[in-house]
């Protein structure tokens, strides 16, 4: 697949993210936009999935442990054909399948209900263990936020994944450096992320999280790593693609108003 194709997919996902959150009137654009390229590469290139059969035997699984970035997962699922793109307008509205944070019981393609940070990572470890137990070659991909790494359960999960040699598990840290209250370094330093995972027994790569060559290269390398889970520490930009949201913690959990949404879509090449 050409990188260009993925770039277009990621752009469409970003456009959907802005539209979804604008329509909802609340939500988390910053961390959805920072993870868009990683999520695009997973859903359109890396993972073995079937939108027509979301529960396909032997499929790869994706867990969005940073569940507040639900809009980026919903956008990717719709873009991939798991449900109509029109449904994205219902985000966070009463009766919608698109809850504020993903619900596996409601959305085709969502493998784990997340939102309370750290738990999706543990669940992903369980899924990888189940696959090993069953001789199932499906792989498990879990995306974590950098602020999320402050949760103690993350390191319990990291320890257990290495202990059980889960080389079918890949954790991608969306390292945009910002969380609700400000920069990680000010709130509660999480650095050095790469060394922490390495110390916990993981195979670690640090990549530029908006560079498809590096993203795909890291996934390919993870497949070749045996006996250890892989952590991909992806340096990203919070709010990536929308100038006034980029690197601004204020856009962690705020919806754009009409004018801001219009401007964001203009920058992304989407239609208002």
């Amino acid at each position: 697949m050409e990188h260009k194709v993925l770039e277009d997919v990621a752009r469409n996902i970003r456009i959907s993210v802005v539209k979804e959150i604008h329509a909802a009137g609340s939500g988390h654009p910053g961390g959805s936009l920072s993870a868009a390229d990683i999520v695009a590469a997973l859903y359109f290139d890396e993972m073995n999935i079937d939108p027509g059969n979301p529960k396909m035997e032997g499929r790869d699984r994706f867990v969005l442990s940073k569940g507040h970035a639900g809009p980026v997962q919903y956008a990717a699922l719709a873009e991939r054909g798991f449900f109509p793109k029109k449904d994205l307008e219902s985000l966070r509205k009463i009766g919608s399948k698109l809850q504020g944070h993903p619900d596996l019981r409601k959305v085709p393609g969502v493998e784990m209900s997340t939102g309370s940070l750290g738990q999706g990572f543990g669940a992903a470890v369980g899924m990888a263990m189940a696959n090993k137990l069953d001789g199932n070659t499906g792989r498990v991909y879990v995306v974590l936020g950098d602020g999320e790494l402050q949760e103690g359960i993350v390191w319990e999960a990291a320890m257990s994944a290495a202990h059980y040699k889960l080389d079918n598990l890949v954790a991608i840290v969306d390292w945009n450096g910002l969380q609700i209250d400000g920069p990680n370094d000010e709130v509660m330093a999480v650095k050095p992320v790469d060394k922490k995972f390495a110390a916990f027994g993981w195979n670690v790569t640090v990549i530029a999280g908006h560079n498809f060559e590096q993203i795909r290269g890291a996934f390919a390398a993870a497949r070749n790593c045996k006996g250890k889970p892989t952590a991909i520490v992806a340096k990203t930009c919070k709010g990536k693609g929308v100038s006034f949201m980029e690197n601004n913690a204020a856009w962690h959990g705020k919806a754009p108003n009409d004018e801001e949404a219009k401007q964001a879509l203009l920058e992304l090449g989407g239609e208002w």
Partner: protein
Amino acid sequence: MEKMATRQAYGKALVEFGAKYSNLVVMDADLSKSTMTAEFGKAYPERFFNMGIAEQNMYAVAAGLAISGKTVCASTFAMFATGRAFEIIRNSIGYTKANVKICATHAGITVGEDGASHQTFEDIALMRTIPGMTVINPSDGVSAKILLERAIELDGPVYMRLGRAAVPVFYKEDAELEIGKGSCIRDGKDVTVIATGIMVGKALEAASVLAEKGVDARVVDMHTIKPLDKEMIVKAARETRGIVTAEEHSVIGGLGSAVAEAVVSSCPVKMAFIGQRDVFGESGKPDELLAKYAMDVSDIVRAAEGLL
């Protein structure tokens, strides 16, 4: 009378069910010799996962295993399962309706010598507030095994409360016990004692003492606290003059509260509540503690007499 701890019955039953249910996976958090899951680990090492002293992650991983199709029994002490990992159980197991059986041992004051940090009186209250969570508290070794199998066959989250101390076995192996159906183990017309867990044995003893005093007490083993057998409770409220609840749990939020909720909305009747009275426990022998904290046979007798 034969005595056996419900945790002992649990450990033994797991080994048997491991053969019968090939999908069964067992987890523990470094307490497998105490929770008795170690026997399963020996018999089925590939289906046993020790997660170390990390209860939160154990229950999150259990959710992932269950969502991938496994039936999971994940054990540790009741304090750490329901207390420390509450929010993981709520969000990753309850909300997802994951097929995880939280089989927690060493519940209540009969943990004994370990003292207050290990004696949980809050677990039933916590677990029964989670939508869709089945809450089971077996009274003896035989019913623990029967109800464990029912729990394994039920698709969804279950909290099973098990004890450390050996308690009398009074059920026969062919007893017909169903989740959500109370078991009336002694009929009586004057007063009803609705008990759960190890307090059922104490309630039976209390009924014998009451009989000597000319009081005909009914004893119900309410092994399932959720879903609650309201029918049996209302029947007791109608047919006897009062209800005593007995549990090795706080009087706040547990069996007593659940029974009171059922009674006040359909057939109000006088009640008395035997349980931990909003205080922490302390070290001591189980029997000494039950006596000191007013959860003994004599306390049930006095409470029943107070309703007549």
